[in-house]
């Protein structure tokens, strides 16, 4: 599939944005993976026409005519958005998320909305009210989650770019399982305005792409301060430019690794990780052993903080002003209790209950406050590790794509699939999943790079090097 960069260059040189978008729309309509839940044909055609007109008028747009798929928790004015939950059935947003608006300003064209785990809570895209998503290479398997639809859409060639959100690994894990690039920016790098909130101190919008350079380009266009988001950083945005020779960035680079990360990996995943390390050394990088002593608590910390914040963020879904309201509710109490129990799926209800528990009087200190203290320890661990290395290399997921239904019976089992990705959200550091081969069954394996806060650009340069080593 043509990269976003190449497509934009063609459109800027006179090729038709409308034609590229039509192709993408056709693929979206023909999707068999259930990755796509809504096609925005009218919007896409109008956008494409506008891009063509702008280019004709002399503008050169970084993402001219590039079809874009957005996760169902990212708002687009006039379109339905539901976070794949019944509680938002029929909701049409009057405004567009800043990140999406910036991409469209740069010429990208939203063609479709992608399936996701309900309210971004899941690691397999099996909790969606629109049904599960199938893995692009094996329909009996899951694509990962919660941004499973977005990852599958890029892997299946529906669009060169997709957006997801990552709270505990929801971009990187499906990227790894589907064999595409998926990146979580530094916390505050991309505005969260217009992303339906899950874990406010953890959420970031990020790109899926077929290669690192496309992902870097998408980030550079989306990133930057937004007055609508008080947690967005004022810092200048790194350019999307990567070194012409991807291996150049690796020469002399100090690549950290955590020995403890090798435990519990599927054999083929471990093998690919070891291979990557060997090739890195051959390419002139130095491997540096580092430790993250409190990482073993990351999942526990996450399930306290993320659920507490989620329980709070989901309080607005109450059947009053928008979304589902229980039929025949006789009084206010019924409006609330019945709308919410009918509208939220079981995983979401579990997390709301857990989140309510950890914030409740008598439990707040022992749970939420305690978790935020352990979180600081994790942040300090990363600071210590990055004093010794430029980036940390490791696995994204302990396994490749697992079978549908395999982990549904035990919520804790599902939570533990995020064991390698969660710490980056807690510390706010940027992290990316880079495709690095496949297992013996052809199921993709991704490797994760994590870098210091604000080193997103540098991280992409190193990631491009690893991507080259993996080919």
């Amino acid at each position, binding site marked *: 599939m043509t990269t976003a960069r190449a497509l934009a260059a063609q459109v800027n040189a006179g090729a038709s944005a409308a034609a590229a978008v039509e192709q993408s729309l056709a693929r979206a309509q023909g999707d068999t993976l259930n990755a796509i839940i809504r096609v925005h044909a009218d919007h896409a055609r109008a956008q494409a026409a506008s891009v063509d007109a702008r280019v004709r008028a002399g503008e050169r747009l970084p993402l001219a005519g590039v079809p874009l798929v957005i996760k169902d928790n990212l708002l687009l004015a006039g379109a339905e958005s539901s976070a794949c939950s019944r509680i938002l059935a029929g909701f049409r947003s009057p405004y567009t998320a800043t990140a999406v608006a910036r991409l469209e300003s740069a010429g990208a064209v939203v063609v479709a909305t992608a399936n996701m785990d309900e309210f971004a809570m899941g690691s397999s895209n099996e909790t969606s009210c629109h049904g599960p998503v199938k893995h692009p290479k094996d329909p009996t398997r899951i694509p990962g989650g919660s941004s499973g639809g977005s990852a599958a859409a890029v892997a299946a060639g529906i669009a060169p770019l997709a957006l997801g959100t990552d709270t505990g690994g929801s971009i990187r894990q499906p990227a790894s399982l589907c064999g595409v690039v998926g990146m979580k920016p530094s916390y505050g790098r991309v505005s969260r305005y217009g992303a*339906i909130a899950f874990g406010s101190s953890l959420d970031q919008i990020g790109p899926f792409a077929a290669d690192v350079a496309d992902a870097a380009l998408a980030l550079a266009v989306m990133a930057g301060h937004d007055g609508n988001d008080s947690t967005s950083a004022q810092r200048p945005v790194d350019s999307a430019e990567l070194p012409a020779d991807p291996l150049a960035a690796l020469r002399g680079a100090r690549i950290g690794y955590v020995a403890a990360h090798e435990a519990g990996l599927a054999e083929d995943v471990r093998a690919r990780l070891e291979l990557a390390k060997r090739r890195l050394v051959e390419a002139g990088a130095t491997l540096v052993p580092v430790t993250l002593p409190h990482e073993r608590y990351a999942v526990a910390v996450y399930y306290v903080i993320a659920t507490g914040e989620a329980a709070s963020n989901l309080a607005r879904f109450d059947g009053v002003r928008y979304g589902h309201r229980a039929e025949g509710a006789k009084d206010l109490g019924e409006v609330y209790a019945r709308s919410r129990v009918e509208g939220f799926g079981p995983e979401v209800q579990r997390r709301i209950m857990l989140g309510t528990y950890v914030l409740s009087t008598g439990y707040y200190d022992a749970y939420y406050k305690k978790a935020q203290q352990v979180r600081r320890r994790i942040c300090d661990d990363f600071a210590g590790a990055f004093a010794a290395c430029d980036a940390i290399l490791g696995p994204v997921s302990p396994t490749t794509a697992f079978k549908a239904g395999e982990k549904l019976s035990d919520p804790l089992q599902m939570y533990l699939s995020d064991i390698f990705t969660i710490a980056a959200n807690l510390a706010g550091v940027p992290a990316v999943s880079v495709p690095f081969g496949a297992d013996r069954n052809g199921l993709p394996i991704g490797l994760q790079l994590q870098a210091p806060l604000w080193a997103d650009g540098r991280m992409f340069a190193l990631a491009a090097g690893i991507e080259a080593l993996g080919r």
Partner: protein
Amino acid sequence: MEYEAVIGLEVHCQLSTVSKMFCGATTVFGQEPNSQVDTLTLGLPGTLPVINARAVELAVRAALALGGDVREHSKFDRKHYFYPDLPKGYQISQYDQPYCVGGAVTIDLADGGQKVIKLTRIHMEEDAGKLIHQEHGAWSEVDLNRAGTPLVEIVSEPEIRSAAEAYAYLMELKRALKWVGVSDCEMQEGSLRCDANVSIRPLGQAQFGTRVEIKNLNSFRAVEAAINHEIAAQSALHRAGRYAEVVQVTKLWDPDARTTRMMRGKEMAADYRYFPDPDLPPLVITAAERERIRAAMPELPRARQERFQREFGFERAMAAELTAEAGIADYVEALVAAGAKPKLAGNWTREEALRLANESGRPLAEVAPVAAMAGLIALVDAGKVARVVAKAECAELLASGQAPEAFFTAKGMIQVQDAGQLQAWVAQVIAGEAKTVADIRAGKTAAVGRLVGATMKLSGGKADPAAVKAEVLRQLGIAG
């Protein structure tokens, strides 16, 4: 048995900003329902709060005006409960790190003394919307215009001891906050709201009694009435040995029935699950910032009132009246600066200028320009215009825009004070009133008035009566 009432007041005051606490929707009172709603006010998914800088500035001003300790570090917390006027399902407020701790309100007591009521804290938060219950329909209507308006919540220590003190506290609070431009403080418009916490205990008992919270107080007088009602009710129960029936509840004041009733369905001590709002970085208000705001504030009302008493010699009640608003106090000082004697400036402001301003609805300085007023006062003080004449003509003079001396001269109302002329008139009267003169010499000093009156008549009303009297006494050789 004698009881002591223990009262604490929680006052919510809307800050005078253009836009809401955390978003750009506007805050004008009395607009069409749901006409001041943006995406955040509606609580739409994906929306995020951004702190209004002016709201913080006004909040700091409020704290400084009330002598509070403005903390360098504070933060916002989410307070959770479900109600249709609370779109996000939580209110953004401040819980354990408010921006201001302490403070005090000084009130004047009826016996002439003062009392200081300490504050516990002041914090910032956003207001909720309104729920209007249909009288004949089956629905309640949600109006979100007010949702998100910036508020400061001012909590007093339970040091108020009577409804009268509560009333005085509210008046003083309103004066101070209006003075520094923080709020309009209009209970009728909802920019000032008050909840009262009332308990009683036997005089001498240290332990607090059971506290009842009273809401739905829509005027200062309602606060007073409700508190008196509650004190009486609790005292009666205690006297009857039924104090156990006083439970910690929230009641609503019914202004028509003039009684309280229970709030049905109100939860006992709801668990608000406070936690720091992850969407809002903390506030840091440095000492320098605090001093910048303090330096830009005018002299505070109580200080000004006390200065008026000290420097101008005003009685406390007069000083309080003339410092009810900054504009009035400024006006009085402007008159003094223009040469008017303070007592006269005070009297004329209170009796004439304020009256004209209230009647016309126009500002003081516009309806009673300082220069004209000062000029009028000077004429009266010098005896050139009779006080009663000046009062009668004041409104017309001010409306005319003419200089006072020219105005009264044209009307022939300038009193004659020329010594020679007065001497001639008095001499003529005395010559024609031999019997009255004899009465006076016989001890009927009141008859002097007759001679004065006759002189006034002879002068066509133009003589200065005080000067005439003095001249009469002089010519008769009587000490005045």
